[in-house]
């Protein structure tokens, strides 16, 4: 299988020419001693620990006894993307997210796309992520997914050229943006000279764009909408990010217990009495938002929130019910959505996908399990999936049985040869597979900071980049060559 590396023209790395946008960096890297790079790695770890850039692990204790807080491994070698490639990707992202928002408005109103037969109606209406509670609810600017994390990989296409593919849309509560920002800060701290040698597009204004997006989503006519970030609390694995974003935007970080609803308006309890809340950037899943409507035992949300929401008195970002658009069973239809709503050809490609609910597709998948990646439609975080080429005969057999039992629960994709990027590992510098998650903001306009979060699978040969499964992160440079 053909392999793409971001830095080298060919693999293995030894003796290969370096790709143009990496040349300055490669020359610089060749002059660094192994000791000095190791020292900077250690320095980075000390700083991350002190700053408390950690994610929580339930029920675990680390070796310092410091409790269940882990660092996400940070790799020193940046992932570099030439500016012209990024510009194209950015256009594709704007197009895709615009269509996804149009789709969400449509399925919760007139359902034109279902009437036109572009997507089978039962695929949407019987989807567990479809929220009947949202039918006919008007949300400000008809926007549902204000913050979208679109996972992109690079792999060879049919012509053998490297091409960007969308692997997955994340429209519920996509996380990781704080690592994008902290990774850049760390790189500038450790290697200031690199930034004078390269023209790297800045990302530090993300919290500004986010605040602008959230304020633009306010339903109230007030000139100064009150925005809050709603977190499940400090034991949530992404708590650092919630606190970080609230602080960077200068807004309150609230928990469900800080909010209450009175006369269909949302208030927070402050030291000077109740204060109206206009926009909630929630980092809590739909199921936990309002015990009166969703899971009744939830203490993470606020009773009556949906009532206030439906009355148009508060904005919830992202909107309730966005999961119906990022579900893996809906993903194969996104290119058709783009054509249906925008009348345009998709700029970014989907990974070819077999829907096991279709008898023909299922037949093909069952015959080719060894070559395919099979995913559970509702799975997330790299769980519930089969990577054919890496699986044992027994694992494949188990999946075959599961597929036969409930084919609609699965989709399958070819095993993409994800691009790799040189990465520091215990044995030195070696290629490791990466992906990219840009964060697309939809408010008055659809905008984003250049780049996104690059995740890297640190295990040799592994394609799974999730932090819960041994993934790390890299700084991402959009570079004017």
């Amino acid at each position, binding site marked *: 299988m053909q392999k793409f590396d971001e830095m080298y023209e060919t693999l293995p790395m030894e003796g290969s020419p370096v790709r143009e946008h990496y040349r300055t960096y490669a020359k610089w890297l060749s002059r660094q001693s192994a000791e000095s790079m190791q020292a900077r790695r250690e320095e980075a770890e000390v700083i991350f*620990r*002190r*700053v*408390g850039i950690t994610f929580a692990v339930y029920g675990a204790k680390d070796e*310092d*006894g*410091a409790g269940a807080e882990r660092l996400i491994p940070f790799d020193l070698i940046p992932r570099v993307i030439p500016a012209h490639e990024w510009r194209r990707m950015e256009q594709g992202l704007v197009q895709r997210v615009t269509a996804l928002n149009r789709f969400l408005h449509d399925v919760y109103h007139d359902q034109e796309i279902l009437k036109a037969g572009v997507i089978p109606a039962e695929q949407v209406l019987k989807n567990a992520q479809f929220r009947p509670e949202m039918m006919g609810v008007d949300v400000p600017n008809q926007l549902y997914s204000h913050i979208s994390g679109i996972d992109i990989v690079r792999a060879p296409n049919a012509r053998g050229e490297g091409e960007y593919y969308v692997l997955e849309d994340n429209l519920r509560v996509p996380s990781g943006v704080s690592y994008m920002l902290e990774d850049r800060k760390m790189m500038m701290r450790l290697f200031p000279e690199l930034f004078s040698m390269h023209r790297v597009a800045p990302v530090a204004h993300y919290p500004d764009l986010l605040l602008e997006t959230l304020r633009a989503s306010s339903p109230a006519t007030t000139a100064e909408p009150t925005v809050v970030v709603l977190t499940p*609390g*400090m034991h949530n694995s992404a*708590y650092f990010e919630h*606190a*970080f974003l*609230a*602080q960077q935007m200068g807004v*309150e*970080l*609230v*928990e469900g*217990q*800080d909010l*209450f609803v*009175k006369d269909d308006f949302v208030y*927070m*309890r*402050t*030291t*000077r*009495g*109740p204060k109206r809340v206009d926009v909630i950037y929630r980092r809590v899943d739909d199921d936990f938002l309002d015990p009166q409507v969703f899971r009744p035992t939830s203490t993470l949300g606020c009773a009556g929130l949906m009532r206030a929401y439906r009355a148009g008195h508060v904005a919830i970002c992202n909107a309730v019910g966005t999961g119906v658009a990022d579900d893996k069973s809906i993903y194969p239809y996104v290119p058709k959505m783009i054509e249906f709503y925008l009348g345009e050809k998709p700029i970014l490609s989907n990974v070819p996908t077999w829907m096991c609910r279709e008898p023909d597709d299922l037949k093909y998948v069952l015959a080719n399990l060894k070559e395919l990646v099979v995913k559970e439609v509702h799975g997330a975080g790299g769980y519930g999936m089969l990577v054919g080429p890496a699986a044992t005969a027994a694992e494949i057999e188990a999946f075959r049985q599961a597929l036969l039992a409930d084919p609609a629960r699965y989709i399958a994709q070819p095993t993409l040869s994800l691009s790799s990027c040189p990465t520091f590992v215990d044995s030195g510098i070696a290629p490791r597979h990466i992906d990219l998650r840009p964060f697309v903001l939809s408010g008055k306009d659809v905008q984003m900071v250049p780049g996104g979060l690059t995740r890297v699978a640190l295990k040799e040969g592994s394609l799974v980049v999730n932090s819960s499964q041994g993934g790390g992160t890299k700084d991402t440079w959009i570079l004017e060559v």
Partner: protein
Amino acid sequence: MLSRTADHLYWMNRYTERAENTARMLNVNYETSLLPQSADVAQLGWQGVLSISELLPSYQALYGDITAQGVLEFMVKDEDNPSSIVSCLKAARENARAVRGTLTTEVWETQNQTWLELGRMLKSGAFERDPGQFFEWVKFRSHLSRGVTVGTMLMDEALHFMRLGTFLERADNTARLVDVKFHAVERDFYGTVNGKDQEYDFYHWSAILRSVSAFEIYRKVYRDVIRPERVAELLILRPDMPRSLHASLNEVVANLQLVSDDACSDTLRHAGRLRADLQFGRIDEILATGLHAFLTQFLDRVNTLGSRIGREFLLPAVN
């Protein structure tokens, strides 16, 4: 500001202050125990440490006899003892983590660093090797935390609630210290003519002074030998002695005024009255009615004040 945020800020500082005062008390007792003295006196000292925090029964249940090693272990490293230094610093850091977005980066990193270093020190045996240096470290981290707070935080509600926590805790801790140490002297309050006892008195009273960094201050203020009634006056009534009850209450009232919208708030009135008793009180009157009774009542009133602050600002009733 969110009530919950204010609550975390307030408790973050209370726990930091409590850890500092525990370290001060343990340090002085540890140093005193190095002086030539009878085993009874030494044991009385360690018992005093436990009495101050009302921990004598729970200590005895876990450790049995009172020994220096047992008390140090219990008051420093025991995570099951909510008043141990490790428990206080953990609680301070957990409260800080809950509101890290409200703190300046420097304040948060100071708290976090304290917690990380504490783990390393306890693991490496640094505490057992040199308890004195460990206690100095705890004090130093508390100084740093206070300094970085005043030096970097916006002077708004967040800072006022933090300061409120610091000084309410300090008033409570100093009052307990004075109460226990004066109670420990079972003889006539004004000392004796016996030379040996006089020598004991000197070490007893100077230890109290040193535990609140007041030994030099005492000399400077009174220019006299150490007399118990003056020690009491210094620690209770002097407004210029930074760890006295009066000075602590001045800060409590000042910060309460800053967070209170209502000039006739009940909480503020309560704090003002408590402060007035210190401002216009006299040490001979207090001693005449009984120091222990005075301090017991003071601690009750500080406790009530704490609950009022909680009810009015930190955990307001639903809707």
